[in-house]
């Protein structure tokens, strides 16, 4: 982190395994820097107030809302976005399951839903349909794909929802 006066700062963000040096406004959210500074537009801006979950990314393995995080506070952390989830051309199991279960309609909330589901599974909360619903409550889908989203996560977790 290097100061460029009081308004801007050079910050090194480690995103999907690569270091990116960006000059960012000290007031900029991680979401805005990912999208506008690094052109990683898979992470979506919905409400921009922490309610909808479209901006969900993982930081050091934990799911967070990037609209409520300042970019300047994220140096030395591992940031994982939807762009870094697949292994080369091989989609992540959750990405495949979302396609198979038709777990989306317009798709705008989908990157956040999938990143949140990755976090949910790492937390060990994909134990039942009720638990998946409770622990996916931070992601809203206005198309109403929630039942298919739960089914997709349940399949990857190997449980009957």
């Amino acid at each position, binding site marked *: *982190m290097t100061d460029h006066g*009081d*308004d801007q*700062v050079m910050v090194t963000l480690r995103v999907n395994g690569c270091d990116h040096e960006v000059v960012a*406004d*000290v*007031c900029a*959210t991680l979401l805005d820097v990912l999208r506008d500074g690094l052109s990683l537009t898979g992470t979506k801006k919905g409400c*921009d*107030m*922490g309610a909808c*979950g479209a901006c*969900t990314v993982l930081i050091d393995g*934990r*799911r*967070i*809302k990037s*609209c*409520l*995080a*300042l970019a*300047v*506070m994220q140096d030395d952390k591992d940031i994982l976005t939807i762009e870094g989830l697949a292994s080369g051309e091989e989609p992540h199991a959750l990405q495949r399951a979302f396609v198979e279960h038709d777990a989306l309609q317009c798709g705008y909330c989908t990157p956040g839903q999938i990143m*949140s589901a990755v*976090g*949910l599974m790492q*937390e060990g*909360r994909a134990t039942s349909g009720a638990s998946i*619903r*409770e*622990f996916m*409550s*931070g992601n809203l889908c206005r198309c109403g794909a929630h039942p298919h989203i739960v089914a997709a996560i349940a399949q990857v977790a190997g449980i009957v929802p």
Partner: protein
Amino acid sequence: MNPFVYRRAIDPRGAIDMAARPDACFIAGGTDFMQLWKAGISAPNLLIDISRLPLTAVERHDGGLRIGALARMSDVADHPEVRNSYPVLAQALLASASPQIRNVATIGGNLLQRTRCLYFRSGSLPCNKREPGSGCGARDGENRLHAIFGASAQCAATHASDLAVALVALGARVLLASQNGERALLLEDFFRLPEAQPEQDTVIAPGELIASIDVPAAGTWRSYYLKVRDRASFEFAVVSAAVVLDLADDRIRTARIAAGGVGTRPWRLRGCEAALIDAAPNAATFERAARLAGEGAQPLRHNGFKMALLERTVLRALQAVRGDL
């Protein structure tokens, strides 16, 4: 959105020294601050990042538990000692916000979160808490979610934290650090009534930093947190109850009850507690105690329903803590 200068503190002393000016603000998880800042409600000139200070431990202390102010909500909820000895805490934490928020938000920040009153959050409607002297829009406006205890003519906004309700029921203390040293006070006394100065939520002074929360020894306490809300998850409480009971020889030795969603700060239900202490823990005792929950309440036009809802919430929490449910 007002621009701010950003500085990162490397130790608590440095953070405290930097904060010794009225236009400074600490940021840790930032989940509430960022909402307030985007809405123009909070506009510090100096933002001090305390997120990397070593105040994250949860450890045994004086027979009880010391929770570092910067411990994350999800980590505290998952802590074995919290789950085993203080279920009311784990339940209150897991009923708060969403998983993404709980992964970031800290215990200290949770206690300092501002009210969810829509007049306060609007940024433009009258609100004495946001803009002293502008009036209270809720008093004669939409007040379904407002307080039935502790309101003044200036403010009827409820305190939003579930965690604070559980901690008040447990008799927790908050440890504050400043250039003058440390002071500890009951969390119950940390929160201010709105009275004529609703803009001050707590007694914390500029330059003071929450260092930890100390929870007394649980001994044989049983506890439970019940939250009633307008939807099943990711919503603030309409009414909640934190119940701590110590049952021995068919007698209630200790009873501490605090309610959320009903007061301008976490609200002790002392009438209920008095009716429980030394009584037999049976259905008749619980019903008699729960009927006292609304004592002293002063409902507004749209929130009278909270009286009956509070009684039922307290009753169900009492039944749950004894294992009836």
